[in-house]
C-alpha cells in the first residue's frame, strides 16, 4: 500500500494494527521467523517477479545510460515541420528509436527514459533511507521511554502532518538558491537539487515510519524478553538497539519497501510541477510535465504514455513486492 499523492494518511494509520496482530501471533517462532518468511516469499511468484523487475530497473539505472545513445542529441529532421510532431506513427518508433523521439526536439525517448530512471530511483531510495533512519530513531525512543518524550515526539509528528506537504516541498525548492555551499562543500545545479529533494522528501516522510515503529515498540516493550534484559542490568540504549531493533526489521523492511514508491511518486510530482530535476537532465516527471504543458499529449500521446507507464510499472513493482513481503511476514493478512 502506498500513499497516493494527494497525501493520504491511510496506510500510516491502519497498517500498524495489522502488523501488531501478526507479529504478536508469531512471537513464539523466535529467530526462525526470517527463514520462514523467506520460504513463503520465494513461493510467491508474483512477489518474486516484481523483485526481479526491481532488480532489472536498478540494472537499467546503473548501466543503461552507457548502452543507449546520447539523450541530448537533436534530430530535427525526424519532425514534421508544421507542428513539430514526430513523423511516423506511435511517436516515431523505428529501429533507431525504439521508443520514438521527443516532439519539438527529436531526442531519443528510450535514452531519456533510461537516464531518467537513475534519478527517480536514487531519490526514491535515499529519501526513504533518510525517512527510515529518522523515523526508526524517534519511533524507538518515543515508544520505549513514553511519558513526556513520547508526548513531545507525537506532537511533533502531528505538526509535520499538519503541513500541506506538497506545497511545502514546492515552496522550499523554489525559494532555495541555485547554488550554495553547505559545510564548505560548493554544490551547484543538479547535485544541489538532488540533495535538496532527497532531504525534503525524506524529511517530510519520516512521521510515516515513526508512527509505525512507535506502535510496534509500544507493544513490544511489555514483552518478557525486555523484562529479562532489564533484570540482567541492561539499560535503555542496549535494550533499544540490541533487543528491540532486531525484532523490528520485519516491519521496517516492509514499510520501507512500501515507502519507496510513495517517494518516487513524490519526486515525479515535484518534477511535474517544475521543481524537480533541472532540465536538460531527463526525468520521468519532467517528460510528463512537458507532455502536458507543451501540449505534446495531443499530437503525440505516446510521449506522455511512456514515462507514465515507466512510473506506473516501477511503483507497482515496489507495491507488489512490499505486499509480498508483508504477506510473507504475516500470512494472516491475506
Amino acid at each position: 500500500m502506498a500513499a497516493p499523492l494527494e497525501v493520504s494518511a491511510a496506510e500510516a494509520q491502519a497498517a500498524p494494527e495489522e502488523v501488531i496482530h501478526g507479529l504478536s501471533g508469531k512471537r513464539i517462532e523466535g529467530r526462525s521467523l526470517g527463514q520462514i518468511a523467506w520460504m513463503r516469499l520465494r513461493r510467491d511468484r508474483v512477489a518474486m517477479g516484481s523483485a526481479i523487475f526491481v532488480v532489472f530497473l536498478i540494472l537499467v539505472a546503473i548501466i543503461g545510460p552507457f548502452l543507449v545513445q546520447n539523450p541530448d542529441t537533436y534530430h530535427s529532421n525526424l519532425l514534421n515541420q508544421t507542428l513539430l510532431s514526430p513523423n511516423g506513427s506511435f511517436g516515431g518508433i523505428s529501429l533507431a528509436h525504439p521508443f520514438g523521439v521527443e516532439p519539438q526536439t527529436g531526442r531519443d525517448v528510450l535514452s531519456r527514459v533510461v537516464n531518467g530512471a537513475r534519478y527517480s530511483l536514487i531519490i526514491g531510495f535515499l529519501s526513504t533511507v533518510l525517512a527510515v533512519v529518522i523515523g526508526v530513531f524517534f519511533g524507538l525512543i518515543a515508544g520505549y521511554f513514553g511519558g513526556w518524550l513520547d508526548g513531545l515526539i507525537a506532537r511533533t509528528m502531528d505538526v509535520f502532518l499538519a503541513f500541506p506537504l506538497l506545497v511545502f516541498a514546492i515552496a522550499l525548492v523554489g525559494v532555495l538558491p541555485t547554488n550554495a555551499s553547505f559545510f564548505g562543500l560548493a554544490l551547484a545545479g543538479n547535485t544541489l537539487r538532488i540533495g535538496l529533494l532527497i532531504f525534503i522528501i525524506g524529511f517530510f516522510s519520516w512521521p510515516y515510519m515513526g508512527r509505525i515503529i512507535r506502535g510496534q515498540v509500544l507493544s513490544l516493550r511489555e514483552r518478557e524478553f525486555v523484562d529479562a534484559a532489564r533484570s540482567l542490568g541492561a539499560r535503555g540504549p542496549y535494550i533499544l538497539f540490541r533487543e528491540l531493533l532486531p525484532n523490528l526489521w520485519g516491519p521496517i523492511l516492509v514499510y520501507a519497501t512500501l515507502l519507496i514508491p510513495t517517494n518516487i511518486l513524490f519526486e515525479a510530482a515535484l518534477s511535474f510541477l517544475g521543481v524537480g530535476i533541472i532540465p536538460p537532465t531527463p526525468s520521468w516527471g519532467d517528460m510528463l510535465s512537458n507532455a502536458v504543458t507543451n501540449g505534446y499529449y495531443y499530437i503525440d500521446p505516446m510521449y506522455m504514455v511512456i514515462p507514465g507507464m515507466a512510473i506506473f510499472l516501477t511503483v507497482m513493482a515496489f507495491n507488489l513486492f512490499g505486499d509480498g513481503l508483508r504477506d510473507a511476514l504475516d500470512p494472516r493478512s491475506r
Partner: protein
Amino acid sequence: MRSRKSLVLGALTATAALTLAACGTSGTSPTSSSKSSTYFNEGITKVVDPSTKATNATMTIDAAVTPDSTDYDNTYYAFMWDFVRLYSMSLLTYKSCPGACGEQIVPDLATGLGTVSDHGLIWTYHIQPDVKFQNGATVTSEDVKYGVERTFAKNLLPNGPTYYQVLLNDPSYPGPYKDKNLMGLTSVTTPNSTTIQFHLLHPFSDFNYVVALPQSTPVLPSWDTGSHGGANFQLDPISTGPYEFKSYTLNKQLTLVRNPYWKASTDPQAKQLVGKIVVNFNMNQNTVDNDQIANYADMDLQGLGVQTAAKDKILSTPSLKADADDPINGFLRFAYINEKVIPNVHCREAIEYAANKVTLQDAYGGPVVGGQIATTVIPPNIIGYNNFDYYDAVSKPTGDVAAAKAQLKLCGQPNGFATGLAYRSDRPTDVLAAQALQTALAAVGIKVTLSGYPTGTYYSNYAGVPAYVHSHDLGIDLGGWGADWPDGYGFLDELSNGNAIAPAGNTQISEINDPTINNLFTKAAGSTSAAANIPIWHSIDEDIMAQAAILPIVYQKVLLYRNPNLTNVYMDQYYGMYNYAVLGLK
C-alpha cells in the same frame, strides 16, 4: 496471494486499454459555427467582416492570465494596452487599421499631435473640449495632468512604464497621495482647461510615442478618493472610452457595459458595438482555445496564440484554418551575449556562427507557428528594419561549425571555452531554447552551464542585475523583447544604449557601452524628423550585430483564431494581436 498474478495482469490490461485509446489519430473534426468567406491570414492585411452593426449582445472574452492591473496608469502588458482602450482615451493613440497603417500615431483625446517649442524642451497638446467621463463630468487638461501625476506613486502603482519619471523635470515628486503641498507636478502645466504642456529635461523626439501610452488617460481626482482610489482604483477606473466597468472581481471576472457619455465622433479609433463585454481571467489556455473553437467564447485576450492541441486542430481542419491568422507579432526572441563576461568579439562571433537556428526555431514552435529565423535586432514590421545577415543564419541555418572554429582560433580559444547561460525556467520555450543552444555550442567546444530562474525575478534579481551576471559568469542570457513603441528607439534603446544599463531590472543585459552607439541615440533624440532617424536605426542595428552582442533567434509568430461571430477583426501591428477596441458581433 495466489490471485496476485491475475491482479497484475488485470492492472496491466486496464492501463493498456487506456493507453491504446489515447493513441491513434488525433483530433476530431468539430462543427464550425457559421460559414464565412474568409481565408487563412486574411486578418493580417484586411479587416475581416467589417461592419457598423451594433447589437445588445454580450461578448465573452477569455484570458489565461490575470492583468498586472486594470488601472491604465499601472499596466505594462501589451494585451492590456490594447484592451484599456475599451474604457479609456489617452491623448494620442494608434490608428485602428490593419498592416503598417496601424503603427501611426493619431490624436485621440487631443486635437493633434504635440507641438514642440523651446528647442525641443516643451511639448504642447490641446484636448477636445467636449469629451466626458462616465459620470458626465467634462474632461479638462487638469484631469490629464492628474493621471500623469498618479504614475509617480510608484509604491502603490508600481507596474507601469517610467518614462515620465525619467523625462520630466520633477525628480522628487512622490505622487498625489503623498504630495502634502498639493503643488502637484511642476513640470506639467495647464495654461487653460484644454491645453497641457510637458516640460522635459532633455529634448526627446519620440515624446509623442510616450504620450501615446495609456498613462496619458485623464483621471477625475474626485473619483480617485476614499476606498475607491489608490490601489483600489483598478477595481473601477473612471472611463472615457466606449465602455465602463460594471463589476470586477479581482483577477476573476470583469464586466463592461456601454458608457452612455461616450461619443463616437470624439473617438474614431474605438467602436461601441456590443451591449456588454465579459472577461474571464485566469483560465487554462487549453480551455480558452477550446472555448473559442466551440464558440463558448469570442476572443482570447492574451493574444499569444493557441496551444499545441488547438494548433493541430486548426491547421488540419480547412474550415477552421480559414478562420485563423499566423502573423509575425513584432516580438524578437533572442539571447544577449554579455560583453563583460565574454569580452573578446571573436569569441562572441563564434557563438553566433555555432548556434543551430533550426533547433532554436523548433524550441519556439517551428517555422510555421513558432517564428521566422531572425538575423537582425529590429524585426520586419518595425520602423527602422533593415534586412542583413552577418552570420549566415538563413543560408546555413543549422550553424556553421567551420566558421565558428575559425573565430575561436582568432579569439585565442581554439578548443572552446566555458560560460553560463541564464533562462527563465518556467517558460517551456526558454527551457527548450536553452537546451538547444547548449547542445549546438557543445559541438564546437563551447561548454555551456545552464541556470534557470523564475520569470518573476529574472530581470529584477538575476539576469537583470549586472553584478550577479558577472559573479555567476552568465555570458549568455535568453530574452524576449517587444518595443514600447514601434520605431528604432523603442526597440533598440533599452537593448543597446550605454546609458540604459541599470543596476537592477536591467534589460541592457549585453552591457554594450559603445560611444558611437550612445551618440547616435542622442542625435536621434534631438532630431525633428522621424524619417531622418531611419538610417540611424539601421546603423545601430548593424553595430550591435557586428559586435555580436545579441544573438537573434526568431521573429515570433503566433497562431491566432478569429471567431467567425466577430466583426471588424484584424491584426493590429502595433499590439501584435487583434485590435480589441473595434470588435463587434454579428
